[in-house]
């Protein structure tokens, strides 16, 4: 060691040491800054990521609630099926990622190994379907149709099938009690989509990946109630997915049962008779076209007159709702939605619209009375009506002389209504309208047309009242096409187009006249007409029709009744109602529907009816039949089915027969009556979830009467039979191409 003095340290070294120190502390400062940035500035983001990392949810779906008929008979419930599922987490822990296990499983289940492998792979952008779109921690169902034998094989040799379970699992079942189907009313389920999950995320009932969602009908309308709340067990997992703890978990709440006002027995009859009526109609030759009626679609609604509750609602063509259970096959889906299917998924009772024909006359009658034409005055029912050289014929060109409005309804005299409509049109200013009162259009709106009835089923259509406003909008939307076509085309269609181009924005005399008897551009749905006729029956209250009657929790404790609500009153005085009521009774006893209600115990069960036959451009006529008693209203329609009473009459009569236990001779057998009075009580649901349901006879009690006993159908086409729910002569109605019949 030397005696070098302390000053021997060169300044270069001191400077360098300071540089080192500065470097060192700037490094530490960098670390501190970065730490602040990660933890304080972006801390929330990383907290969320950490939570995603270590919490995994296992979802136990809640049992979906049943859909019951008014007496507690399940229309839709759950059955236990043996579902074989694979746990991806377990499979991934195996050396070959579960390949051999899945192949072995495919062997046991009799499936192709590649199909099984496809089912358990996770969906991503690159993976074609089928693939699993749910949570990878959710057991993935391989099949829900395992036999007990297969399930036993899997469970007994669990060491050969690690990660595979065979468990009895609840699967939706549409039981179809007593031969009813109720497909379109019940709707169907399908797995939830990503968008729906995202949408429902912050709502009151968030969706889970495992959920099935109601897609139509009651299943959709009451989806939240039926679904209940899935149980969620949250596990804290480590980096390998091993469970290291349990986080907050939610217990499953089973879905509530929805009691409907549907009576499965009546529903079965309604479906059967609608189908039969359509089959019968197809045997008839349409005299206008010379070919058999196509009867391609039809619907019937049976409603409680005093509440608007739907007792039966059938739509045809129909389908088996069980096709959707366990995932619909591609083939089935094509059959249900393809062009050739004629769209069986549609509920034509609420989604089918057509011109109403003469059943519209109750509205015209009310409008006329409100416009100041006395009900009991005499109106000339001539065989034809001439407006400026245009001749509008009465049906079958029959003349009835001077009659009051009641008789005009009974015999469905068109010319009486033509005259009323024309006079009113002139009063409103004719082709140069001046503050038109538009009584006939206003009244139609007051009857609730061109508006949803508010039934508790999704996607109800509104129909249409072709008033001035609509005409203007329609003309504006179409004038270019019409004017172009009218210039080029000299054919009949071209002339019509030209006429429409020039005057389509105006309410023409012909439009008003046609409108008055329910022809032309007016569109109504069966449910709208049922609501209207029920309102006539009950004294004027337009009820919002309901299918759901009550929502009852799975333990039967909480009951939410769905009370009838109304959306208005019919715009008539009690006297007018009574007069119309009497006239409609006359229709059933001596008018156009009388031949269908021969022998009906009119004194015991007063029957009211109105027939309608609507013209459809380029198609066969639509059959309408609107009827009511004090308790029930039945409206039926068959597209391209013929006349109102001819095509729909027997079916409606048979539904009444079943309801009241009436036989063809008019004798009432109360024991046979299915539902002489509307069901008022609710089925009881026990604490354990069992339902006290009345037994249902299968097959259901056969309503008496058959086609052969009533006047033969061919007679209805002959001049001997009285139906005169007449369409106007087709050549005079300025028809439009876009006319539709559903």
């Amino acid at each position, binding site marked *: 060691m030397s005696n070098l003095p302390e000053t021997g340290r060169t300044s270069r070294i001191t400077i360098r040491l300071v540089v080192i120190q500065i470097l060192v502390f700037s490094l530490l400062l960098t670390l501190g800054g970065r730490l602040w940035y990660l933890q304080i500035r972006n801390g929330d983001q990383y907290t969320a990521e950490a939570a995603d990392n270590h919490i995994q949810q296992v979802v136990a779906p809640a049992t979906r609630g049943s859909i019951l008929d008014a007496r507690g008979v399940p229309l839709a419930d759950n059955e236990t099926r043996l579902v074989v599922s694979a746990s991806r987490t377990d499979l991934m822990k195996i050396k070959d990622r579960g390949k051999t296990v899945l192949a072995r499983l495919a062997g046991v289940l009799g499936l192709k190994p590649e199909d099984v492998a496809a089912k358990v792979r996770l969906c991503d952008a690159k993976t074609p379907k089928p693939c699993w779109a749910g949570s990878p921690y959710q057991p993935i169902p391989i099949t829900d149709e395992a036999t007990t034998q297969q399930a036993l094989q899997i469970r007994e040799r669990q060491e050969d099938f690690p990660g595979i379970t065979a468990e009895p699992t609840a699967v939706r079942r549409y039981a179809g009690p007593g031969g009813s189907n109720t497909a379109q009313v019940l709707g169907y389920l399908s797995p939830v989509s990503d968008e729906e999950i995202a949408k429902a995320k912050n709502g009151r009932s968030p969706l889970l990946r495992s959920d099935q969602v109601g897609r139509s009908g009651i299943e959709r309308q009451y989806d939240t109630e039926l679904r209940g709340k899935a149980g969620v067990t949250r596990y*804290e997992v480590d980096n390998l997915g091993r469970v290291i703890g349990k986080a907050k978990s939610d217990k499953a709440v089973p879905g509530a049962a929805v009691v409907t006002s549907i009576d499965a027995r009546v529903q079965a009859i309604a479906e059967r008779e609608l189908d039969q009526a359509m089959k019968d109609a197809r045997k008839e030759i349409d005299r206008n076209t010379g070919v058999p009626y196509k009867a391609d679609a039809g619907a019937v609604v049976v409603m409680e007159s005093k509440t608007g509750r739907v007792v039966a609602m059938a739509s045809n063509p129909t389908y088996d709702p069980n096709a959707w259970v366990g995932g619909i096959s591609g083939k089935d889906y094509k059959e249900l939605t393809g062009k050739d299917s004629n769209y069986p998924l549609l509920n034509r009772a609420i989604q089918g619209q057509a011109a109403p024909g003469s059943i519209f006359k109750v509205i015209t009658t009310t409008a006329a009375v409100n416009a100041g034409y006395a009900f009991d005055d005499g109106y000339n029912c001539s065989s034809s009506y001439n407006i400026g050289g245009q001749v509008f014929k009465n049906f079958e060109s029959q003349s009835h002389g001077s009659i009051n409005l009641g008789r005009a309804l009974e015999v469905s005299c068109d010319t009486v209504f033509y005259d009323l409509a024309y006079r009113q049109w002139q009063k409103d200013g004719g082709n140069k309208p001046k503050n038109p009162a538009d009584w006939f259009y206003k009244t139609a709106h007051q009857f609730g047309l061109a508006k949803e009835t508010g039934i508790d089923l999704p996607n109800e259509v509104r129909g249409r009242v072709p008033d001035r406003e609509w005409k203007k909008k329609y003309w504006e939307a179409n004038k270019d096409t019409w004017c172009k076509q009218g210039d080029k085309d000299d054919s009949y269609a071209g002339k019509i187009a030209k006429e429409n181009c020039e005057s389509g924005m105006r309410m023409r005399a012909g439009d008003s006249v046609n409108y008055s008897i329910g022809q032309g551009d007016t569109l109504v749905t069966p449910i709208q007409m049922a609501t209207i006729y029920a309102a006539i029956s009950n004294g004027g209250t337009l009820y919002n029709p309901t299918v759901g009657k009550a929502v009852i929790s799975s333990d039967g404790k909480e009951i939410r009744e769905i009370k009838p609500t109304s959306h208005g009153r019919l715009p008539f005085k009690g006297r007018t109602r009574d007069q119309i009521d009497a006239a409609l009774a006359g229709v059933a006893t001596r008018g156009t529907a009388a031949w269908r209600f021969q022998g009906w115990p009119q004194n015991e069960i007063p029957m009211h009816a109105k027939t309608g036959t609507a013209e459809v451009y380029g198609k066969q006529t639509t059959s309408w039949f609107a009827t009511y008693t004090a308790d029930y209203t039945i409206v039926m329609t068959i597209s391209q089915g013929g006349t109102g009473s001819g095509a729909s009459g027997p079916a409606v009569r048979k539904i009444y027969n079943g309801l009241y236990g009436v036989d063809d001779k008019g004798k009432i057998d109360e024991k046979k009556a299915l539902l002489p009075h509307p069901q008022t009580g609710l089925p009881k649901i026990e604490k354990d979830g069992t339902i006290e349901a009345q037994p249902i006879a299968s097959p259901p009690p056969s309503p008496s009467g058959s086609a052969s006993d009533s006047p033969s159908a061919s007679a209805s086409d002959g001049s001997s039979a009285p139906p005169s729910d007449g369409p106007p002569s087709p050549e005079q109605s300025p028809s439009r191409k876009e006319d539709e019949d559903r």
Partner: protein
Amino acid sequence: MSTAGGYRVRRFTPERGTWSRLTARDSVLRRLDWVMLLAALALSAIGTLLVYSATRNRTELNQGDPYYFLLRNILNTGIGLALALGAVWVGHRALRGAVPILYGISVLFVLAVLTPLGATINGARSWIQLGGGFSIQPSEFTKITIILGMAMLLAGKVDAGDRRQPDHRTVMEALGLAALPIVIILLMPDLGSVMVLVIIVLAALLASGASNRWIVGLVGTGVIGCVLVWQLGVLDEYQINRFAAFANPALDPAGVGYNTNQARIAIGSGGLTGSGLFHGSQTTGQFVPEQQTDFIFTVAGEELGFVGAGAIIFLLGVVLWRACRIARETTELYGTIVAAGIISWFAFQSFENIGMTLGIMPVTGLPLPFVSYGGSSMFAAWIAVGLLQSIKAQRPMSA
């Protein structure tokens, strides 16, 4: 080393008893830098808690005993403290004479790693298995021997008063002395240690007062070396991947980027005060690999938050600040070079270690001094503290 120390202790204390030597006015205890010592002790204490938190439920590592790593870490710290004490006792000056032997031993150990005696962990062959679950990482001790060796050579003539700064020949000798173990470690390949050693060499040259040309030349060689290493494909794929993941953390989050990503999530989720010791979900869930060793800082980040993790950086700052003071205040060049070497070692290694968990440095296998679990690194760090204390305590050279 401790046996050598013991032998020297007896030789240097002929006239006074041990006790009176410790309590005397000029006693070593009074001349120690207690601030640094306490900061280093605090780091070790925090580290022990973090190691326990990270390992108490890693059953695949702790052989079913949640205290396995805790107890070993305490034992390591104890041994480290003893080694530090030994270093103070022996004194850095006395060690000067033993440097050739120590250097030779360390080179032999490093060489041994490349023989079948060595064990490969995480792609690098840096360990020697001793059996009984013990292993040593010789490159850790190399840091000390290179510092001591270079200091001895570079300061030799200056401290002897022969020259004002080391001549070129001396610098070349010193570089040669450092290069031998560095090349061996590069072959392991333990890139992290090589980076630290290069920084140490640079700092030693800086502190020795060697001509600027050497500094510039060394930096230039370092840059060229990096380019060559990259170009010649000396790096293993896992190392290239680490760099790739560093450049783009979103790259393959399940694979290469997994470490960085999970580390960042762990630290980021800690927020201001953290989730509480033993309550970190990332830590409990073992999402961060190597969490008790290289990624120990993520435990602090998650469970102690900005406050706790910041405290670690602060304590490291305290140690380095005191070390810088010692480096500046010591009168002999030998001590200055040793202190500067240790400073650069601690600073760079801490920066690299914490930086990689924060995503601002690429991932390399370097422990955090005092905090990470690991015997060799713990021993080396504490020996270094002992050397610093010795430099401070023995300042009055005439003593």
